[in-house]
């Protein structure tokens, strides 16, 4: 009677507590397993990402949240021995199936023209942008950093490119600080500026999803606040997944939060619910600071 949560909690203590978003899903992981060689580091993880929302992933170090992020844009593919099984659906298409079956699927669907290229790994990564823990500006000018991804896929005139660069920098809240020195090296910016430059570079190609792996952990509080503000505004145009160690940050900016532990998704719910009424005792212990 007074136990409102009964329908959600499963009898199986291992089963995740999932509250699926009602809205349109842009990206979804289903029953995802991940292996570093013989070591399994994700166990049947489900992760629904709603369009134009911020989804936060929290959990103690080594719980698999960064691994999950690296699986979503197939960065792990660069390293032999790392492998993922399960399904990752981007707009309903499975990213983990191989390229050959992908193009067959696309031919049948007849929508090849909509893609920037074949939906191979490179093109996929262009649709799912990623920002890392440490800023990763390339050794080139601020302008070229932002234009980098765009130039890979599109032929743009100088004027169009100028517009894209300005718009991306504005959206990343960096334009005012760098507009007079676009031709200086991106390596010369402060850490917070570099991180927002990486955000600008990531959104310049208009990805559908932006993945951020602890983007603020190397930043001071002022830069962190600016970055968070930027992310809240970017939600208008992009779907954002952010891994963070900072619970307040997750609570402040995200719409959904997933709590992970030892490679499993323990609880995934709207952020306010997860923080205020955690269902799993593990989640409760973590968000109240009892461990982790």
């Amino acid at each position, binding site marked *: 009677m007074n136990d409102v949560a009964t329908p959600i909690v499963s009898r199986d203590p291992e089963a995740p507590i999932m509250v699926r978003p009602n809205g349109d899903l842009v990206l979804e992981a289903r029953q995802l397993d991940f292996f570093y060689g013989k070591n399994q580091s994700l166990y049947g993880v489900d992760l629904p990402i709603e369009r134009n929302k911020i989804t936060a992933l929290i959990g103690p170090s080594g719980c698999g949240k960064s691994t999950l992020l690296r699986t979503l844009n197939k960065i792990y593919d660069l390293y032999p021995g790392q492998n993922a099984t399960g399904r990752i659906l981007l707009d309903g298409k499975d990213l983990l199936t191989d390229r050959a079956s992908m193009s067959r699927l696309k031919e049948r669907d007849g929508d090849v023209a909509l893609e920037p290229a074949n939906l191979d790994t*490179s093109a996929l*990564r262009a649709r799912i942008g990623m920002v890392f823990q440490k800023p990763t500006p*390339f*050794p080139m000018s601020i302008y070229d950093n932002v234009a*980098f*991804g765009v130039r890979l896929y599109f032929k743009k005139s100088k004027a169009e490119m100028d517009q894209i660069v300005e718009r991306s920098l504005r959206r990343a809240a960096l334009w005012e600080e760098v507009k007079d020195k676009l031709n200086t090296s991106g390596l010369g910016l402060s850490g917070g500026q570099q991180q927002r430059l990486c955000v600008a570079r990531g959104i310049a190609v208009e990805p559908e999803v932006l993945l951020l792996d602890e983007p603020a952990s190397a930043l001071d509080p002022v830069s962190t606040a600016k970055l968070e503000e930027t992310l809240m505004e970017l939600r208008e145009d992009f779907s954002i997944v952010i891994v963070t160690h900072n619970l307040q940050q997750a609570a402040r900016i995200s719409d959904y939060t997933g709590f992970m532990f030892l490679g499993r998704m323990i609880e995934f719910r709207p952020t306010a619910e997860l923080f205020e009424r955690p269902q799993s005792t593990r989640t409760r212990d973590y968000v109240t600071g009892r461990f982790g």
Partner: protein
Amino acid sequence: MNATTMDSDTAPPRETAPGQSELSETIFRYLCFGAATLLLAALAGVVISLAIGGWPAFRQFGFGFFTSSAWDPVQENYGAAGPIVGTIVTSVLALIIALPLATGVSVFLVEFCPRNIAKPIAVAVELLAGIPSIVYGMWGLFVLAPWFAIHVQLPLMTDSANLPGWLSGLVAGIPNGANIFTASLILAIMILPYMSAVFRELLLTIPSQVREAAYGLGSTNFEVVSKVMIPYVRRGAVGVVMLGLGRALGETMAVTFIIGNSHGFPHSLFDSGSTIASTIANEFAEATSDMHTAALLALGMVLFILTFAVLAVARLLLASEKH
């Protein structure tokens, strides 16, 4: 009291006896200082004796020592333009040949090669550096030179009427395979291991997140390597080039075997020539007159300055790479 605020006043007294008395501390310091000084003194000694020994030649021929290509021990007339140009041309050519190869090897080892194969290949490349230069020289003289003469020089000679003028000028020469170009080839093989080893180390310093960020934007392998990774180590790569150049400039035995050892100014790529080091190696035992010895020492001084300048620039560039 708080343990973290402990300072020297409250530090516990040392219970074991100090290992060194005041005197032995002083002796130790001076020994280290002496070792360092000795090396510098040896360097200075080499420079000074080269300068003194070469002085008569510099005085007699003046600036002409660098511009004249007359090298005539009988007439006691020495001009070093031939060996100097030969040294620079062979070294630069070797660099042009070795640089793309070194880049390819190191990029392959760092970026594409499965890790269990990368190690053996890296060791094999480093083994190249362990082959004594005289072995390279013999291989060059007995294997490369005849092959080159028969399969490259002779066909080009018989075809020379069909070649454009500038090209036939470039490849003119006696078809014996001992020339500037084959010497450069041997040099290229010799500097390749050093260059690729240093280049590989440089590429390994790139944070993996920068690579991942480039891949994350949808770059292909080639785009990541050419647009992000190589620019990332740009300055260090210049250092690699200089290091290779420094080695090529001073290489003696292998070049002496295969360059043809003629003193004049080399007139084409396939013309025989000489380098500073090969000239000194060939003639020092037979230098009977004082002026001949002085001219060779002066050559040594020139080589020293060239190599020193190149290595100094390399050091500077490599140092500035460590952000």
